[in-house]
């Protein structure tokens, strides 16, 4: 169970990215966060694993207060929270295998990992995860030689190496074409249904959100604008979230 309580983030520049956001996510839910660019989706996700320090409020996950954790405790918590990114954030010059193995960094002996040494068990696991996302044969190719969709699958494999209980996906398909988008979203769905991983995924497109979400949260200017089931978003709600001028774009 993930509990967000009165979460507020004000950047040093004075921008109020999140204002008093509260919600709960039961284990195993596929939660999609929608909203315009700059509505605070990325900030919200990054506050959960404290890549961004929240200004106020608490985040409680499995009865641990993430916002109160020391550096050491935070690392222990982060190990169980996978994250994938809009820009994939792979180490482009490194082979796919190294990128995937990096997902184990929280678990390995720090000394050994500094010289790029991972246990045979970890390597086996990495190949297995790559196999799962369908790019087992790309393991020893440099990451920047893969297509966008393949890179995002490497990102998923990396997150899977953490054996996460929670997965944060920050606009995972925003840099991909529609067909690839669906394939990546389907992998996330699979993880959610088969492995029972709780997923928090931010998306631009309402149509994608409707297809995959158990529940949708909408942010607007850092505030919660909507929290409910996908089918509850009608034209009026849509205009509330995206503004009066918005036109629905369907993504096939």
């Amino acid at each position, binding site marked *: 169970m993930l509990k967000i309580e009165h979460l507020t983030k*004000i*950047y*040093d*520049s*004075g921008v109020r990215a999140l204002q008093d956001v509260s919600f709960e996510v039961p284990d195993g839910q596929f939660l999609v966060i929608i909203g315009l660019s700059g509505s605070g989706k990325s900030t919200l996700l*990054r506050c959960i*694993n404290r*890549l961004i320090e929240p*200004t106020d409020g608490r985040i409680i996950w499995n009865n641990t207060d993430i916002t*109160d954790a*020391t*550096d*050491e*405790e935070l*690392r*222990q*918590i*982060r*190990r169980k*929270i*996978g*994250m994938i*990114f809009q*820009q*994939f*954030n*792979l*180490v*482009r*010059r*490194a082979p796919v295998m*190294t990128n995937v193995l*990096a*997902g*184990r*960094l*929280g*678990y390995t002996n*720090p000394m050994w*990992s*500094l010289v790029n040494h991972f246990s045979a068990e970890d390597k086996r696991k990495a190949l297995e995860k790559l196999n799962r996302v369908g790019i087992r044969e790309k393991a020893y190719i440099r990451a920047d030689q893969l297509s966008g969709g393949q890179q995002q699958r490497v*990102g998923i494999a*990396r*997150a899977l*190496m*953490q054996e996460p209980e929670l997965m*944060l996906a920050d606009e995972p398909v925003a840099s991909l074409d529609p067909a690839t988008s669906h394939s990546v979203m389907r992998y996330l769905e699979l993880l959610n249904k088969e492995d029972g991983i709780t997923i928090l995924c931010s998306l631009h497109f309402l149509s994608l959100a409707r297809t995959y979400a158990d529940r949708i949260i909408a942010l607007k200017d850092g505030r919660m604008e909507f929290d409910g089931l996908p089918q509850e978003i009608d034209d009026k709600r849509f205009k509330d979230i995206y503004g009066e001028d918005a036109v629905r774009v369907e993504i096939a």
Partner: protein
Amino acid sequence: MTNKVPRSSRSALRRLLLVLGIVIGVVIYAYGWTATDISLDEVQDPVRQASVQRAMRELLSPDLFTRDRENRSFFVDFAIGCPDGDLPEGRTDTGDGAYVIFTPPCADSDEIITVEGFHFPADAIARIQLYREGQQNMPFRLVKSDAADAQASDESVFDLDSDGHFRVSVKVPRGRGLSGQTHQVEIQAAVPSGWPRLSATTETVIDKMIETIFLALMATTLALPVAVVLSFVAARNLMRQITLPLGNVLVGFVLLPVGGWLGYQALGPLGQLGVRWGKDVLPGLLGGAGALAGFALVSYALGRVTLAGSAQRVRSVALNALLVAVLVFILGVLGGLGIWLGGKLQTGLLADLGNFVGTLGTLVDLIIATLAAVGGAMWLSSLGASLVAGPMRHIFSPLSNVLGAVLGALSGAILLAMTALFGTQAVLLGLLTPVVAAALGGQLAVELYYLVPGARKPKRDRTDVDQMIHTLLYALGALLAFAITAYAIDLLRAIVDERPPSRAMIDLGLFEMRTYVAKSALIGGVLGGLAAGLAGTQVAFPLGMTVYNTSRTILNALRSIEPLIMGIVFVIWVGVGPFAGVLALTLHSIASLGKLYSEQVESIDAGPIEAIQSTGANRLQTIVYAVVPQIVPPYIAFTMYRWDINVRMSTIIGFVGGGGIGFLLQQQINLLRYNQAGVAVLAIAIVVSILDYASAAIRERIV
């Protein structure tokens, strides 16, 4: 407002400003003209023009090659003092097919005659001398001008053309009993023989050029590791995110000297034991292997046991400490082995290798205690800071203020005592103590202001007025603290009379201490204690930015001192020679590479850092997995570029005694041997352009 001013008067104003600007510009340049002594008289001076022509001609006629010459002598008759009666014939044959015409055919001593020779060996260098059996030969000195009062020069050597022809004016030598006799005149021709080969100058230049290139290589490689480490510390994007609660930082700071002392006391002797055993080879090898095996065994055995949270923490701390001890010991053993090997390999092909290994071993021996102290300080400090991190979170005011006051007082005292100790070394370094005190004082003033209800606001909520009050108060506090400290340690006397602080001691009961240091510590304690006490232990301290600013300041200061000036200091320390040059260029390269590298770190993509951090990786892992892969290509490029610069700089570092080709060049210039200097200049030009091209090509390929 501006809209109300009529258009015409605005453009008039602009024109006036433009004219004013031009006038000021002219005045500046006029002053610059005078200040730099620009003078056309000097340029036109014929004497100077002649010398520059000569110098340039010789520089451009470098003494590159030489070849062996074989001396052949030709004898002709010549009468000094014309005999009565018939004048001798002008033409005299040598008997080898060559002949000489003297004009006039005979002459008195000191008279100038013209000698023309035909069919001598081609391209020879020759001289004419009076041959006297059993006595010293007397040269006919060359007269280089046709003027009537022309004087003989010191030279007697001239060149023959490719037909073996020459025509020179010479002065007939003077000597007792020469007059009135016919003498044998020897025309000595040095005939080229054998293949041309490199001249002695060229050989020396090549030798020195190799020294120069290696000097640059050494400086670059020695600077590399230091600069790489510094570049992470001096990168804003990596350091900005590091903030810790003030309490943790203070605990870590207080533990620094304690850990240093412990490391020095406990690990230092262990390292030196390693060195001793290493020198005896067998005990070293056995001891080193034993230590490693022991550590592996202990860590394996301990690793099998599953422990609860806190006990697990204790175990990893103990294992880390053991690892540090084992590493120090093994480093000592390696150093000892190096010294042993260096002793064995003193002659033969491997002598250079022996010298290298031996010096490294000695270096380890020299610095192992210091290394142990630094290692101990870092270890205990980070351990302390991370151990207290948990409990510290739950300490609130007023306890956090009391704790802050105690820790702040200790830290402030330690900080200022250390700067004071440093400051006793020289007058200008003495400035450090009041400057550091000022930083504390400024913070204290701001903290005092926070006592006003509602004054303490996070930075994002501050208005411009708040910001101004902050800055003013900080400046005021800093100024006050500076003045008080400067007065207390009598800085004025130190700076005006250039006298280091007094050496008076004060008895503190437990131990004695320099009064100067004690005073500084007291001031630091009071300022630090008050500031941290008011702030409390929970305030976020920008540790990263503090380290960043400090390291950037040091790098910038180092970079502003030219390597030539550093070279002068190092020549005093290690004597004239390439080693001094290596040290000077190393120091400058550290500063320069440190800055270039850190700018590369600052421009990397932040995405992978986020990604690696989100996996639960620690800071070091994040650097290795997210930062390093992105910076390897630019680092290689900049290292090449720096080597290129270092070669260029090492060509002149010799001018201050730093070795390399510059040393040779300067000697030759001082001796006015421009032909030889020309070789050095040519060599520099060739090597620098080759390296320039090569480094550009490599950089292009990598990036």
